[in-house]
């Protein structure tokens, strides 16, 4: 499948309503496993449906390779049935009146393939997804997980250039979801299809995707590899949306600055006087460490004194809740914390663990170099 390109794509339902998607630029390359990630209502499903052709655009254009498939300027709209894509619906949308085999066979029949080839392909995907034993059943006789496999098989049978998945795992229970994730990753390798996957679950996105596009309120926030998204969030929204427990944010407001934030401000301005216009600093809970004695805090790290107010075991790791007079921090540790509630501790973080954002919440990229180089000193 050639590259899919969205340029300035826009969608609104009705003239006066707000944009569900605005001015979206997105490039999906062959063989990619891309996740559209964002909170509900951020426009990720709409984006997927625009790619499929189930929604037409209100602005911009969509190209597949060199071919324009949707554009107001050119007056072009290629309907979904001619786009040769696969889409797995959140509800699965299996046809209730057809057996599993006929559901899987539907697209092949439309393509008027010879019977032998059809049977071979149906057999292959049904085996691959382990649903061959249900071939004569109707969708209502299958469990959610099985239905979901049929929905996948139905689309894979026609071997689409790109497979679109709309939160396909959200209706499954936790164990099945884990299995299906592994399954999807395997299928991606086996069928070498481009996959676009919509989810609001960051773990799903992190574990599956080769590229993640984070969306919020109809706009693209950041696009990058899972590590990019996690390690270098482009703005505060991405930083706060990805990660659990969420990133600690110290914001430098004129009138609401906490004591810990003030310490961070002092720390940064004393060591990196060239940095200006900082709006906030973020530190991931697992980037924080703690020490009971001052000597154990490494030189040059950002640190402060706080009181332990909560120790929450999560199985294999612990979340510590630390409080100062006006701030609460969360810290994740993998070693059993030998602490008492109310005990005073020092938290610390190496300078490169600090994410520095400007007053508009955008990442200050120059800060990254400065802070990283500091470590070498």
């Amino acid at each position, binding site marked *: 499948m050639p590259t899919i*390109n969205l*340029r*300035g794509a826009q969608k609104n339902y009705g003239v006066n309503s707000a944009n569900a998607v605005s*001015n*979206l*630029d*997105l*490039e999906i*390359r062959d063989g990619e496993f891309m996740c559209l990630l964002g909170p509900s209502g951020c426009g990720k499903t709409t984006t997927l449906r625009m790619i*499929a052709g*189930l929604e*037409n655009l209100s*602005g*911009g*254009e969509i190209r597949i390779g060199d071919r324009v498939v949707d*554009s*107001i*300027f050119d*007056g*072009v*709209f290629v*309907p*979904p*049935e*001619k786009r*040769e*894509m*696969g*889409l797995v*619906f959140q*509800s*699965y*949308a*299996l*046809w*209730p*009146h057809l057996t599993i085999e006929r559901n899987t066979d*539907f*697209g092949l029949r*439309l*393509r008027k393939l010879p019977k032998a080839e059809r049977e071979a392909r149906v057999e292959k995907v049904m085996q691959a997804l382990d649903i061959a034993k249900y071939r004569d059943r109707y969708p209502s006789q299958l469990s959610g997980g099985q239905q979901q496999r049929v929905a996948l098989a*139905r*689309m894979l049978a*026609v071997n689409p250039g790109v497979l679109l998945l709309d939160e396909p795992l959200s209706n499954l229970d936790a164990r099945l979801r884990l299995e299906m994730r592994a399954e999807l990753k395997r299928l991606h390798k086996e069928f070498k299809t481009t996959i676009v996957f919509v989810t609001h679950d960051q773990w799903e996105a992190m574990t599956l995707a080769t*590229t993640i596009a984070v969306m919020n309120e109809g*706009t*693209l*926030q*950041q*696009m*990058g*590899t899972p590590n*990019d998204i996690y390690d*270098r969030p*482009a*703005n505060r929204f991405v930083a706060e949306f990805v990660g659990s427990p969420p990133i600690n944010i110290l914001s430098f407001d004129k009138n609401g600055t906490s004591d810990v934030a003030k310490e961070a401000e002092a720390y940064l301005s004393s060591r990196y006087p060239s940095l200006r216009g900082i709006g906030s600093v973020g530190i991931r809970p697992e980037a924080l460490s703690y020490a009971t004695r001052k000597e154990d805090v490494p030189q040059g790290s950002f640190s402060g004194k706080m009181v332990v107010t909560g120790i929450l075991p999560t199985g294999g790791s612990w979340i510590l809740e630390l409080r100062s007079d006006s701030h609460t921090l969360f810290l994740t540790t993998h070693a059993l914390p030998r602490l008492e509630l109310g005990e005073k501790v020092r938290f610390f973080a190496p300078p490169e663990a600090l994410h520095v954002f400007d007053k508009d919440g*955008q*990442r200050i*990229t120059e800060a990254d170099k400065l802070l990283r180089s500091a470590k070498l000193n």
Partner: protein
Amino acid sequence: MAFLSDSAKASPTAGGEASATPSSWQVWRYRLKVASREPTTLIGVLTALLFTYLIVVPIISIVLDAVRVQFGHERRLGKDFGDLTLYYLDRTFTSPVSVDLFWRPLFNTLSVAVGAILLSLLIGTILAWLISRTDMFGRRWFATALIVPYMLPAWTFALAWTTLFKNRTVGGQPGWFEALGWTPPDWVAYGRFPITIILALHYTPFVILLFGSALRRFDSQLEDSARILGAKRYQVAMQIILPLMRPALMSSMILIFAKCLGEFGVPYVLGLPVKFEVLSTSLFRSIASRQTGVAGVVAASIMLIGIITLMIDARLVREARRFVTIGSKGSMNRQSRLGKLRLPATGFAATIFMLSVGLPLLTLFLSTIMKLPAQFTLDNFTLDYWIGQDLHTVALQTGVLLSPDLWAAAKNTLVIVGLASLASGILGLLVGYVVIRTPVRALSVYLRQVTFLPYLVPGIAFAAAYLSLFAVPRGPMPALYGTVTILVLALMADQMPYASRAGISAMTQLGKDPEEAAQIAGAGWFRRMMSIVIPIQKGSLVTGVLLPFISGIKGLSLFVILAVPSTDVLTTYSLRLVDYHYTQAANAVVLIIAAIAYLGTLAAQKLTKTNLAEGLGS
């Protein structure tokens, strides 16, 4: 704006054309392209035109009849045919004959309706409670059995009543009581009293269904909370249950009223002998005596009352929704123990069943196999009225089953009602599809409303409207009066509210996903209709055909105006037999209709696993 980290594989921001604003003609060209890609919108426009012609135009035509000089009145009014005039309004509402034409029939309609409503509420609420919330014997059986009166044509009961109570005021075979030596007074035999009783019994199922389903949905926890706070049983009933049941009660009252407004058969059979007229019979008389202008005024008045009534109902339904949102999720339905009252309560339900189903049907059946009324000796019984041959009578010399007229009427019924239901079922599904799927919102709203319009118009007024439009040739349309076509068209239009509602709700339930999945798989519009939409909707298509068929078979008011002897259907045929005082034959035909309607309803319920409550179109 997109924020891109340095390693993101994003395309450069598209410059030039993609981010510029498209001109308005580009937008329109694009929209047209999207809308015309599929025939949905085209089908929508065509059906919208069709229903405008079949529903809106006849109604406009009869309203115009009311204010324009009609044929034959040119000289008297000193105006040309078709000029505007207030003469008919004046004649109907203020002239000395207005009392007979409009005001007394209006009063009679209202009084009969109010009486029927009160009586059916009284009986219906008790029965609904017994069936849904108590441990009465045979609840399940009664739940179906007590709905039966609604499945039968209302004037079945009217004929049974005359069979029993007919007195010497009217000629022909006497009623059973008369034959036994007791002459029922006129007020018992004819007019307001029997009409009220019969309509009440006929529409009690409405209350049982609507009130009963509200009771079943009622959460016992609401009751329990009040009890825990110290409320007594009657306090709970008055302050918790009743207020929450009010919407259901009001809704059934209003539906009964709307139905009474258009009821023709019962007042025709029972009111005529004592000149007791309601609006529908007054309209019929105006049409029969070719008072087209006055008929227009009366028909328009009936429509107006109908529209107002159902608008009130729509409002109440909206209010009822407010209650629903408050009600909790876990609907606990606990039964009250009747204790000592268990047997009397069962007796009450059984009595109502006997009065509203058993007795009338038995009476009718016995009357068809007895030579002389109320004489229960063996030699008085005969099957001649059903299958007799060479009976020495002036007309109808064979039993009714051997009469060619019956079979002609049966064939007409099958053809007319069958065609109309088939058409309305298919059109209903199409309308449902367009309403849900078209990107043109205005079209969707218009189609939804125009197909609902006949619901607001009582059948007899609708028939009058058809007569007004199609009695004479107009444009390319020849005069249709006396043809099968006009009956099929009128019946189809009259059934559209049910058909389109069924179609819309079926399409809403189906949702977009299965069709979109087929689209993704590569199926074009036609293919999707054939392989996905219609097969999935098979069940509702069958209901969409069967339900109009049943209600068409027992329908009378539409046919009585539009049918002529050559296009007689079973209902009009039996009415004609009533007019000729062939009591036994008329009763036999009505029994046949009742049997078809009853069995058909049962079949429809079995087939679709729905219950009647949804079919009531509340």
